[in-house]
């Protein structure tokens, strides 16, 4: 148990891969800023890597009062044991009340180990964070594939830790603000153990789903790689990005990194069109913040019709070509 009143401020672990700070860190800073402001405390970002002050100071404009920079050539690549030890030391020294991580593979791998080391609580894959009456953090998480939501609290341990789905928090507008980069003395850093023998960056998909105004998603009902091109064409007409459900990715029609849903991305476009998607909660939890949801499915009983604004009962591969040609015509007007 920790003396709760000794802990103050909202921290974000801004993860970097290959020297690039991931967007989820900036998204979380927006939320940390909001929470910090409502309690009148500090928001801070923590970056571990091989980076300069100049490469991390942009985080100030996203809401950080302080950016703790832990930099060393041996920290360039992620090593759970080394990163855990450094974060443990920093938390014990500075005592933040909350520490937020992106729920991507790096944050989801690191945060639990840090939480166990610090003997504190960690909620997983939060979709919402808010202050409760006691000034603690209410952490809303989906369970059972999103068919159920739970509010998690961590009353007697600090920091309150959470991983948050990429895209679940809106990206804040960067602003001119005051803040400082604090270089933390990391001392001797051993090379990563277990040894990293290979690091292969992957190619990114064409249009990023995160932040897209229009998202066209396809599921198993699309039926073939040939038909999948219809989604790409529709996305092009509307200036959107293409996402997919797990079964479509398993079929090889779309790359892994465009999966939308609980264990993939959360999107909040103005317009979401889901074609050939049955609408299991796993997927729905990733699209429910869309402004307008359109569903096309030939099964009138498909679950997605329960959560849509417009539902078209019909074969997506017959409806999509008509939709594409009419949109071309009407948007051209």
């Amino acid at each position: 148990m920790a003396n709760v009143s000794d802990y103050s401020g909202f921290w974000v672990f801004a993860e970097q891969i290959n020297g690039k700070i991931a967007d989820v860190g900036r998204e979380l800073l927006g939320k940390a800023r909001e929470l910090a402001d409502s309690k009148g405390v500090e928001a801070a970002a923590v970056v571990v890597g091989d980076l300069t002050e100049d490469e991390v100071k942009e985080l100030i404009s996203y809401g950080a009062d302080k950016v703790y920079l832990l930099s060393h050539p041996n920290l360039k690549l992620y090593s759970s044991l080394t990163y855990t030890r450094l974060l443990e030391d920093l938390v014990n020294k500075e005592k933040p009340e909350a520490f937020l991580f992106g729920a991507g593979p790096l944050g989801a791998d690191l945060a639990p180990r840090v939480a166990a080391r610090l003997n504190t609580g960690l909620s997983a894959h939060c979709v919402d964070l808010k202050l409760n009456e006691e000034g603690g953090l209410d952490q809303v998480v989906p369970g059972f594939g999103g068919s159920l939501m739970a509010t998690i609290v961590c009353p007697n341990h600090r920091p309150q830790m959470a991983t948050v789905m990429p895209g679940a928090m809106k990206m804040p507008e960067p602003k001119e603000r005051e803040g400082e980069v604090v270089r933390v003395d990391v001392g001797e850093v051993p090379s990563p153990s277990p040894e990293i023998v290979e690091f292969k960056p992957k190619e990114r998909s064409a249009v990023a789903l995160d932040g897209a105004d229009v998202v066209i998603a396809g599921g198993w009902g699309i039926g073939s790689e040939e038909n999948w091109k219809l989604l790409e064409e529709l996305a092009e007409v509307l200036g959107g990005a293409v996402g997919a459900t797990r079964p479509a990715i398993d079929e090889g029609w779309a790359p892994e990194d465009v999966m939308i849903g609980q264990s993939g991305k959360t999107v909040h476009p103005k317009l979401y069109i889901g074609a050939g998607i049955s609408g299991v909660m796993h997927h729905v939890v990733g699209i429910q913040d869309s402004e307008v949801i359109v569903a096309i499915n030939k099964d009138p009983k498909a679950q997605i019709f329960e959560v849509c604004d417009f539902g078209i009962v019909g074969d997506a591969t017959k409806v999509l070509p008509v939709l594409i040609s009419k949109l071309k015509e009407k948007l051209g007007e």
Partner: protein
Amino acid sequence: MPQAVVCVKPIPDPKEWDRLSLDPETGVLKRAGISTVINPLDKNALEAALQLKDRFGWTVTVVSMAPPDTQKTLREALAMGADKVLMASDRALGGAATLATAYTLAALVRKAGDADMVFCGNMSLDGSTNQVVPQLAEFLGLPHASHVVGVETEDGSTFRVTVDLKDALLTLQHSGPMVLGLTKEANDPRLVSVMGIISAQSKPLEVFSAQDLDLDPEKIGQKGSPTIVSGLFMPEIKRRREILSGEPEEVVDRLIDGLREMGVL
């Protein structure tokens, strides 16, 4: 013989999750009548261990923290080829968040004797926290890797482990025990054979209480869990739900008009 320890969690069958409901009075989750299955990714963990058994003669021990009525589900792991099951089953373990779960599993792994490798599913489908693998490793004082998409070894002593970081693939090399969280890309789990089912009946399945495992009562179950569920709710969905059917031309016209009304076109 070297030993692989595999963590297995029985979970409510995902195919029946639409039957989950909340008791409106108490807010308690009602899961009665829903069947129990092995968490799917735990089968990938089992497969990785069984390959070491096939190739190098390793012993495969399954550990699980679960209610006593899930023994039948755990027998399925024996039917796949595991040698024995060590199970922690005790009311005092109920309500455990991941920290208390990992602490309990660590005690079971120690009970199994020297583990030369610990395999887990990367996450359980019901909780989906992704947390037990790193936390179990922390309690055991071992390195870990989660999101594992490949485990390779030439000799059964040096392992190359490939991790999917979404933006990159990272390959680790290590000799000595680790805790690995496997994804479904890692392998294709074998099916259960009739012979497997028959031989599973005579394989050992030991059940331990918290006391048997010398667990600290402050660190298990709800007491050992820093986080508390303060509320459960069904997600509320408010949508227009205008359902269109008919000829593609007609429905598409109506859709485009509707989208214009809502200001998104």
